[in-house]
């Protein structure tokens, strides 16, 4: 009986011994560097940040005086207002994109690229074994198909985790090199239990990264399922990326008209909507979204497992 750890080790070997994987890592490094240089070139430092914050406070107050605002959005505005007032009181500059922390927070946008890479790896994990013909030698070992599928899934997620860590490290290094680390002690202002609190910026960055991962995990799982069901690499990549780019738009359109749109996958993958913004459909909460994600997660993995376990290997 082979242990799951050796199986994962095998899958890792098959991921990292390939040129494509290192090409992706190179692209990731390039993206962080390019991002930093573009921000450095284009960002204009406001002459007087206090005046800007003050004018923003005025704008928010004006907006709040309107009657018909949705409740969630109103709350959000109120919180931002409090935070801005706190800034003026305590002389804390807003985090600008051309600072170490500002850049790290923005680097979370590059997670979309990691999602794409993870889709490619997850999609290839099962499908490639079929197209290479190696599936036959893989499945005649003392390891159940369940274990093999699980090891592949875990290896794909480990790849995503590894890429996230690399993104964090690349961004930190690039951010420090390009923008300097003078502002490293800057706090993050959050609104909690009716009061503004100062939090560690590192904690905030980790939180932003984590919230951005819902998309990543769900799309990787989706691609993995398609790969296990149809044994076709391109189809799995194509469907998953198509869903990744078109899904949120379609869901947003549906959400404007129908309430049931909140049960769709893409209504729930963007968890940052609960931290800074308004939910897609009124009444949605973080725990609702997490529940929905869990349901989709179980369905995707269940289908992949059921089909892979019973399939006749005739490749």
């Amino acid at each position, binding site marked *: *009986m*082979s242990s799951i750890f*050796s*199986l994962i*080790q*095998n899958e890792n*070997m*098959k991921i990292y*011994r*390939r*040129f494509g994987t290192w090409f992706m890592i190179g692209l990731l490094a390039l993206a962080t560097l390019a991002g930093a240089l573009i921000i450095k070139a284009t960002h204009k430092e406001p002459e007087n940040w206090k005046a800007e914050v003050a004018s923003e406070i005025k704008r928010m107050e004006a907006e709040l005086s309107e009657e018909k605002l949705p409740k969630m959005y109103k709350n959000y505005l109120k919180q931002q207002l409090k935070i801005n007032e706190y800034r003026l009181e305590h002389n804390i500059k807003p985090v600008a994109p051309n600072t170490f922390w500002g850049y790290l927070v923005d680097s979370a946008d590059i997670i979309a690229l990691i999602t794409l890479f993870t889709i490619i790896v997850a999609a290839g994990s099962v499908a490639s074994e079929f197209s*290479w*013909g*190696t599936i*036959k*030698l893989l*499945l*005649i*070992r*003392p*390891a*159940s198909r369940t274990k093999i599928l699980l090891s592949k899934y875990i290896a794909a997620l480990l790849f995503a985790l590894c890429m996230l860590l690399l993104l964090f490290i690349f961004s930190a290094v690039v951010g420090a090199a390009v923008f300097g680390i003078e502002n490293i002690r800057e706090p993050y202002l959050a609104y909690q239990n009716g009061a503004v609190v100062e939090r560690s910026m590192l904690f905030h960055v980790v939180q932003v990264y984590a919230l951005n991962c819902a998309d990543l995990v769900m799309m990787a799982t989706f691609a993995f399922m398609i790969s296990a069901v149809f044994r076709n690499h391109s189809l799995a990549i194509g469907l998953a990326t198509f869903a990744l780019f078109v899904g949120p738009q379609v869901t947003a359109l549906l959400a404007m008209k129908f309430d049931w749109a909140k049960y769709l996958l893409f209504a729930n993958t963007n968890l940052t909507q609960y931290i800074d913004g308004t939910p897609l459909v009124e009444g949605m909460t973080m725990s609702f979204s997490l529940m929905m994600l869990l349901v989709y997660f179980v369905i995707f993995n269940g289908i992949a497992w059921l089909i892979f376990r*019973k399939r*006749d*290997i*005739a490749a």
Partner: protein
Amino acid sequence: MNPLLQLKNVRKDIGKKTIIHDLSLEVFAGEVFGFLGPNGAGKTTTIRMIVGLMGITSGEVLINGISIQKDFEKAIQHVGAIVENPEMYKFLTGYQNLLHYARMTKGVTKERIDEVVQLVGLEKRIHDKVKTYSLGMRQRLGLAQALLHRPSLLILDEPTNGLDPAGIREIRDYLRKLAKEEGLGIIVSSHLLSEMEMMCDRFAIIQHGRLVGIESVQELSKQAQKVLLTVEPVEQALTVIKNAYPHMNVTPAKQGIEVSLDYEEIPNLNAALVSEHIKVYGIQVLTKSLEERFLEMTGGNEIV
């Protein structure tokens, strides 16, 4: 002796079509068992069912008495196999490929990997990427991965495919040695019939998903022989033979007379002919080859 591999009324349906019809056979330790059949006869499907790649519609496959369906992990650990072509991870080196499979079975050490590499003669190229290998080298690597975990049942689909004559002979000798000295049961399928004849102890012929027959190579050579007699005068000789052996199958051929009789009877027939003053110029034994037997059993109208 308990059979190493036992197929009991194995049947495979795909959709409404039955691909394999109630196949039963046994393979014992220490023998090389040949699997013959025309293309599409169901050889590969049968092999896939034995190693658990395909489900079995009804019937049972037992390896060392353990059901492949009920206890896959336990049954398969005694099996080493190449199913069709030995497809490996081309972007990995030969060694990394072996390491990959070694990790999947408990107790395969680095020393064992080195030992197997030496055995199949790949020492010089084992650290090169598989994509640079020739078909023959891939075949050797395939054999290496099948032998890694010291299986008691070895299943090889076309093991000599892509090897040069020296390589074929080497593999053949090695497989015979594994069967005789280490007591492995080996199943070989090949379309090279003469090859099979030299390698196998017994063979099964499959056609249209049915077992046409199981024969041993020994039996094959003991079977009634065809003997070609070059005699004069032919007419007179025919009468003599008909008198001596009234039930014998006699056919006049271009070069003489063809008769079927047991090996031991040849001198007696000769004596009978000579005593009747028939001139006997030659007695030639026409052994039945596996090829003839194969064509005879499968009807002979299909390509192997």
